[in-house]
């Protein structure tokens, strides 16, 4: 186990270095003088020189990368040109909002995806199975920004049940907070529910054909107990770890969902930064996202090792 963990930790170091190079390299794609682009409307030579000094744009690219990386390692992700605030503090401020949304989306995804997958596997080749498969295809093929707009039309404009946009912190007023996040959480969770349903269906079908399920049935256990206690417990392990890999979908989805519902989270931060040409924020957000994603993948691998006794030895 320790050897596996050490090996995985050593593997992510070059990946993280390459990710940082990739994200730093984005800056080189800017057409023309980066200082001029970063300055936006500002054309004062003094300001331009300040930018060049701040980002060491007069230095060779490897030197620029070295200083950028040195800052990143000491927690300095740069400074937002527009908000005049450090990128790290902006990320720290916006991340909890997205995490709340992501947490609720995962509850939605688990609540729909896993029961749908179980039903589909247990009632294979029936109308239930076809229905669950159609739901999965619908979830994978529906753009979440469209689903968001349709839900606003139905629940906010037509029925007037939920607010169309805005965000209230959980600590301020939990009811209002839930009212503002339930639609975005459903939109975000819908696609992941579809993926989880497919994973659960295939894992459950495999588990239902296993010897221990046959033994459980031979003992005369009720079918419900066989399915939920014997098959599901074994089938859920790969589903949960594969589900953890859907974190990337969640973050990508959050960008669009937060934009539609005007939620001031991590996703909206990157979109606003893109439109205000606040490149330091774009780089910082992408770096934090990638690092979180890599760490979560590692944790998913470790969790899989921990719960699967055959891999532990």
């Amino acid at each position, binding site marked *: 186990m320790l050897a596996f963990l050490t090996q995985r930790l050593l593997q992510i170091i070059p990946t993280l270095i*390459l*990710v940082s190079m990739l994200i730093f390299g984005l800056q080189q794609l800017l057409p023309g003088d980066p200082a001029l682009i970063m300055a936006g409307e500002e054309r004062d030579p003094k300001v331009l020189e300040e930018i060049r000094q701040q980002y060491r744009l007069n230095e060779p690219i490897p030197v620029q990368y070295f200083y950028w990386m040195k800052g990143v390692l000491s927690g300095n992700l740069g400074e937002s040109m527009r908000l005049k605030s450090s990128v790290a503090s902006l990320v720290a401020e916006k991340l909890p909002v997205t995490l709340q949304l992501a947490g609720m989306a995962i509850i939605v995804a688990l609540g729909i995806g896993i029961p749908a997958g179980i039903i589909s596997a247990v009632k294979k080749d029936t109308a239930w199975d076809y229905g669950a498969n159609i739901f999965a295809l619908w979830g994978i*093929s529906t753009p979440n920004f469209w689903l968001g707009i349709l839900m606003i*039309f139905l629940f906010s404009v037509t029925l007037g049940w939920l607010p169309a946009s805005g965000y209230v912190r959980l600590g301020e007023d939990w009811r209002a907070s839930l009212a503002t996040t339930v639609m975005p959480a459903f939109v975000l969770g819908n696609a992941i529910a579809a993926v989880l349903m497919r994973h659960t269906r295939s894992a459950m079908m495999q588990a239902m054909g296993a010897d221990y399920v046959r033994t459980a049935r031979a003992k005369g256990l009720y079918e419900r107990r066989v399915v939920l206690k014997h098959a599901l417990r074994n089938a859920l392990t790969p589903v949960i770890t594969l589900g953890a890999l859907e974190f990337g979908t969640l973050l990508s989805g959050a960008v*669009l969902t937060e934009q539609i519902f005007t939620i001031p989270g991590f996703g909206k931060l*990157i979109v606003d930064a*893109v439109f205000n040409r606040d*490149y330091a924020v774009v780089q910082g957000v992408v770096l934090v*996202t990638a690092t979180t994603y890599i760490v979560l993948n590692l944790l998913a691998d470790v969790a899989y090792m921990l719960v699967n006794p055959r891999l532990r030895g």
Partner: protein
Amino acid sequence: MTAATLPTIVAADATEENPWARAWRRLKRRKGAMVGLAVVVLFVLLALFAPLIVPYDPIATSWSAVRKPPSWAHWLGTDEVGRDVLSRVIWGARASLSAGLVSVGIALGIGVPLGLLAGYAGGWVDAVLSRIVDAMLAVPFLILAIALAAFLGPSLSNAMIAIGVTATPIFVRLTRGQTLAAKVEDYVEAARAVGNPHWRIALRHVLPNIVPPLLVQASLAIAGAIIAEAALSFLGLGQQPPSPSWGSMLNSAQRFIAQAPWMAFWPGFAIFFAVLSFNLLGDGLRDALDPRHK
């Protein structure tokens, strides 16, 4: 003896079904895949013949027809500046399908040679390429595409480049894996034994044998690329106004959802059906080309 048995072998070979014909026969049996293929063909025809089909100029505004609901004159209604929604949805198929095809073309064009190189050469070449692929896959797809499109500048062609580059690592990884499996097969050993150069073995013997999984992945990747292009255009990083694209149509529709909901319905349905049809086709191709998937 040899001369006597030869005609029998030739005859047996002649009756053996071509693998592509077999795949097509299997594909035809899958209703979902055939429906997907039919819808894909329909969208391709709409995109190709858009100038001949559309009832109105998709960018012509009309202040007397602002936000009109569906009617005989405008089957799918009009938008906030009086443009015909049906004409814009049909023209939008061009942006979406070309984004899907071009970006997957870019991903295949870069990913397949690099994957072949990594899988065939092995050693440090494989190690370096695999680490770069890991790094690119570590950034969530849409976030990397948004970042790339942001730095390249907003336009449909830059969005296609951003999506294509972002989709490349999947093809590198897939091609590498398939090449690793193919290069130990007898036919590659035989090609090596008769003295073929490495490039020839890779291109003439390995590549044709790894096409089926690439084809399946390409079909599913087109679905992903269509959604990604719509998402980038929705955010204002893809097709620029007034040119029609399904994503940018949804962007403006969002602001008028209470007054003109039809503006949001049709471009959304178009994205949904295009993505669904490529997903159905991809699933069907996987079943038809890979006998392990049933």
